[in-house]
């Protein structure tokens, strides 16, 4: 289809609009459609529908997106093979399907686990769910993007929704502060990112990742400064989103200030989207520049691994500690990226996939323990949780042990595969530092477990009796119980029988 313009614009070349292949972007379309539907729904009724209605519809949309993704998976793995749609703007391959499934799972679990939170804190209206749906669609586009503009679009759709979500809990001052901080710094990093896109375009004459790769493989640039600077700026933009040190400083404040379910969502979806796009840019477009970007990622990985672990060590606030721990996890995924091999991408995807369930589960428990007002996050508030809430404590213990990488949880193989990928690509120093940081990290995970399982009611003082009473009064809504049960079952089952998920990640890179 060609649009013929008139007047002044007639002197320019006609704008060419590629044919729209909705089937290729069905999962994000479902998300966006449901977001619009939720907003319409609330406008249609005089009395606001119950929060449960929004939760149910959001969960249904994510299940629909998973189903649509699996249909796509079947199509490309059995019948067709990977392809690009809309003139290369969208890549439909195993990688993008895996990202879509991943963020849909994240949305599903978050929708279920935030239902009770929203009721408890009195957050009403469809906006919370609509924004989550939009944010998820953005992350999906980042995973499926075939060119830099689509990546940027996805990044902004995802991020802007997240800025608002961070400030959703208007009763807490910290929530608003988190939103402002995240927004200002996010805008800053987006600006850097867009500049990176511009320079890359200037250097190669294209925004399409495949065309850039093609151009670079066929031409030797006389002066590659423009391109390298552009690439560095792009990496900075991604490093901000995935919270790599030293671009991480917003993370503790924003994670701590945001409503806890949003924190879990942010930690999984924003990281997944960021890493997906980073992998695409570095490995598709930047493949020939490997020697230029690998050292950058190497340094970022080491700083992130150690910075996250060491700073988590001195936290006494569990939510903040988990924020640093998510930085540490980003370091592990970067180890897989740095390997720049298929095995490394495999490992990074497997890590992201299993991490999603663990991190959402962890923050879900934290949101319950936080109690009304979402403020009881100190380590002290977890003392004796095993006695008052045995099941909840066991769940959190499982998620923390998985994050620490204990065998028979998904976390073990996640850490094992990235470190193996690093060792196989001869990054021995990185592998050793990753193991060291895992050892440091084990300490602060186990400390929480220790707190939960220590101190019986008999030996406690008056102060801790108050804590125990508060714990005993905690209620776990049914939706939350389902979400926790699913996350725990996933973590445990695929920890014991890891083959299906490993296989999924493996095939996803095969169809890259």
């Amino acid at each position, binding site marked *: 289809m060609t649009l013929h313009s008139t007047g002044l614009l007639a002197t320019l070349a006609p704008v060419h609009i590629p044919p729209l292949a909705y089937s290729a972007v069905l999962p994000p379309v479902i998300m966006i459609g449901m977001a619009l539907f939720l907003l319409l729904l609330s406008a249609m009724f005089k009395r606001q529908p119950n929060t449960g209605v929004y939760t149910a519809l959001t969960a249904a949309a994510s299940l629909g997106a998973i189903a649509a993704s699996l249909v796509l998976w079947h199509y490309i793995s059995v019948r067709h093979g990977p392809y690009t749609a809309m003139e290369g703007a969208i890549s439909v391959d195993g990688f993008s399907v895996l990202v879509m499934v991943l963020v849909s799972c994240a949305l599903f679990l978050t929708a279920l686990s935030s239902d009770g939170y929203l009721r408890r804190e009195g957050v009403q209206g469809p906006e919370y769910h609509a924004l989550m749906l939009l944010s998820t669609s953005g992350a999906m586009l980042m995973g499926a993007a075939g060119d830099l503009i689509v990546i940027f679009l996805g990044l902004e759709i995802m991020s802007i929704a997240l800025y608002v979500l961070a400030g959703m809990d208007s009763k807490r001052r910290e929530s608003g502060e988190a939103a*402002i*901080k995240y927004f*200002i*710094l996010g805008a*800053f*990093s987006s600006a*850097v990112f867009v500049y990176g896109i511009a320079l890359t375009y200037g250097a190669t004459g294209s925004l399409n990742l495949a065309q850039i790769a093609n151009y670079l493989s066929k031409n030797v640039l006389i*002066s*590659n*400064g423009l391109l*390298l*600077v552009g*690439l*560095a*700026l792009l*990496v*900075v933009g991604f*490093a*901000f989103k995935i919270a790599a040190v*030293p*671009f991480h*400083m*917003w993370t*503790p*404040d924003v994670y701590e200030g945001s409503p806890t379910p949003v924190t879990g969502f942010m930690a999984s979806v924003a990281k997944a989207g960021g890493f997906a796009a980073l992998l695409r840019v570095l490995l598709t477009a930047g493949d020939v520049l490997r020697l*230029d970007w690998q*050292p*950058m990622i190497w340094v970022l990985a080491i700083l992130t691994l150690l*910075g996250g*672990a*060491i*700073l988590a*060590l*001195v936290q006494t606030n569990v939510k903040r500690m988990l924020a640093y721990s998510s930085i540490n996890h980003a370091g592990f995924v970067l180890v897989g990226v740095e390997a720049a091999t298929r095995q490394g991408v495999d490992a990074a995807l497997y890590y992201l996939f299993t991490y999603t369930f663990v991190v959402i589960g962890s923050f879900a428990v934290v949101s319950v323990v936080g109690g009304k007002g979402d403020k009881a996050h100190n380590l002290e508030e977890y003392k004796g949780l095993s006695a008052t809430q045995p099941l909840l404590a066991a769940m959190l213990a499982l998620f923390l042990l998985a994050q620490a990488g204990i065998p028979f949880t998904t976390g073990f*193989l996640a850490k094992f595969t990235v470190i193996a990928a690093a060792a196989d690509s001869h990054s021995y120093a990185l592998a050793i530092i990753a193991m060291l940081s895992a050892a*440091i990290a084990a*300490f602060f995970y186990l400390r929480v477990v220790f707190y939960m399982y220590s101190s019986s009611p008999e030996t406690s003082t008056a102060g801790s009796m108050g804590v125990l009473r508060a714990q005993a009064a905690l209620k776990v809504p049914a939706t939350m119980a389902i979400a926790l049960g699913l996350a725990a079952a996933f973590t445990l089952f695929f920890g014991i*029988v*890891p*083959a299906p998920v*490993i*296989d999924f990640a*493996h095939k996803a890179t095969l169809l890259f």
Partner: protein
Amino acid sequence: MLHIAYLIPLLPLAGFLFLVAFGHRLGKPKAGWIATTAVALSFVTTAIVFAGLFLRQPSDRSFTQTLFTWMPVGPLHVNFTVLIDPLSITMAAFVTGVSTLIHMYSIWYMDHDEQFSKFFIYLNLFVFSMLVLVLSGNLLFTFLGWEGVGLCSYLLIAFWFDRDTAATAGKKAFVFNRIGDSGFLLAMFLIFSKVGTLSYHGIFARLHRFSPEEITAIVLLLFLGAVGKSAQIPLFTWLPDAMEGPTPVSALIHAATMVTAGVYLMARVNPLLHLSPDAGEVIAIIGVVTAFVAATIACTQNDIKKVLAYSTVSQLGYMFLAIGTGAYVAAIFLMIAHAFFKALLFLSAGSVIHAVEDDQDMKQMGGLRRFLPVTYITFIVAWLSIAGVPPFSGFWAKGDILVNAFSRYPGLWVIGVVTAALTAYYMARQFFLVFTGSSRWESAHPAGFEPHEGGWIMRFPLVVLAVLAGFGGFVNLPFHPQWNFLGRFLAPVFQGTIYHQSVGVGGEWGLALTDVVMAAVGIGIAWRIWYPQWSHPSLEPAFLQRSWMVDDLYDAVIGRPGAALASFAAVVVDNKIIDGAVVGVGKFSELTGLVLRKLQTGFVRNYALGITIGLVLLLAWMASRVG
């Protein structure tokens, strides 16, 4: 019909999971019945698969079923494969069969125990692990089952953990088994490094890649594992201590099934064993020496269960003699017969112990014949069977082993025959001390106390096992080539590797007669000594009573220096060096953290500065790459 094979291990697993969830709520006796049903169904499944296999052509009686891929890591694909062939299905059949009977018996025996449901949870887990061990198509899962049964054994020995002796015995069994397991692990590493697979079919198809020395090393390392699990010299002293567990556990795990796993493993790897005659000789010698040593010790024990425990060690020694000789069918034959008569002996002993209210000292028993009529009969059947009196099963099985030993290693045969006489002697001694003579238990109990037996739940397993122990020998008779049904059924598994004895029918008759004479001599001597008089201190030297001082030796050579080393390691190495290093790293990290934390001011401008610094550094790097 054969594709349901996966259900065989799955049913006990289902029982285990169900009982973990609901066992406590079900309470007694329902939890016990659930566990028994699970194992009984597994037995039925085994029987169906067995029949299906039997109907096939002999050459076609082996198939594998891949259930799932456990983990695909690089070139290593670990599949859980069920391997059904005559050997594994025979083993599975008697394991599930005997387990069902012992589960049932336990419902009666554990009736007064407070941890009733927990007992059955462990028992079902044990059966599951044992079946994984038996049915697995590769060494890794065999090892997993191997460790699983070890764990259950540990848990069940120390079931009454509030007794110090039980807790210690559990620990001892665990440590001794670990020593053996190290051999198993090393053997697996060695195999994998050579052929890159651990599946039995894969290994046997690539035997040419091993040098003869490697084969010998692998077989001996696996045998080290078997020595630990099957309580052979020098790792045999854990088994008598394991008698601290409840008696049904002794019957099931420490007599009928788990301890025979070592024998099964060696029979399973027969193609390897065949290529290393040296290793075979080592196995045969260790087997027959163990048989002899354990039999001498059994002659002097006073604890009713300890006698049976040493007897188990001794019988396992016979099985290894057969393995070492290459007479795998004879080994499996004795394994089956032993499972029947030893389980029967233990269950009968359990009935006796129950009757005299938990006293296990045979010197405090006597004259129980009148009070325990069923137990009395079943014990006689089991006793005559293990003593080698025809036509009971033990006679045929032991005879089969001795014929092969005579043909291949005449020297070892002599020890084997002497041991047979000792076996008849100590079992007769036990019988006379328990069932005949004066009622010595009366003094320890109030007047009017009368020992009694349990109801049908307890009697039924005894009677079934007595029938099996009595007539089980007919599955494999000598004298005519058409009568060895078991041998012909198992033949495909041991094709080309089994040893064919060359004594002829006349020789077989002669050897059988020797066995009968030996049994008669043993029983006759015991009758002369122990029937009229229950106390003969001169016949029970302390050296034998204390198992040839082996434990004292271990204590002096390994235990004490080990304890000294451990305390050195704990006080000096651990506290000062390792803890110092760990605490040092921790402190360093924490200090670094406290410093870095200062950077986290909470001001957006500082965060933006952080991003900018990072950006500048990355740009500087890229600038250095421009060229």
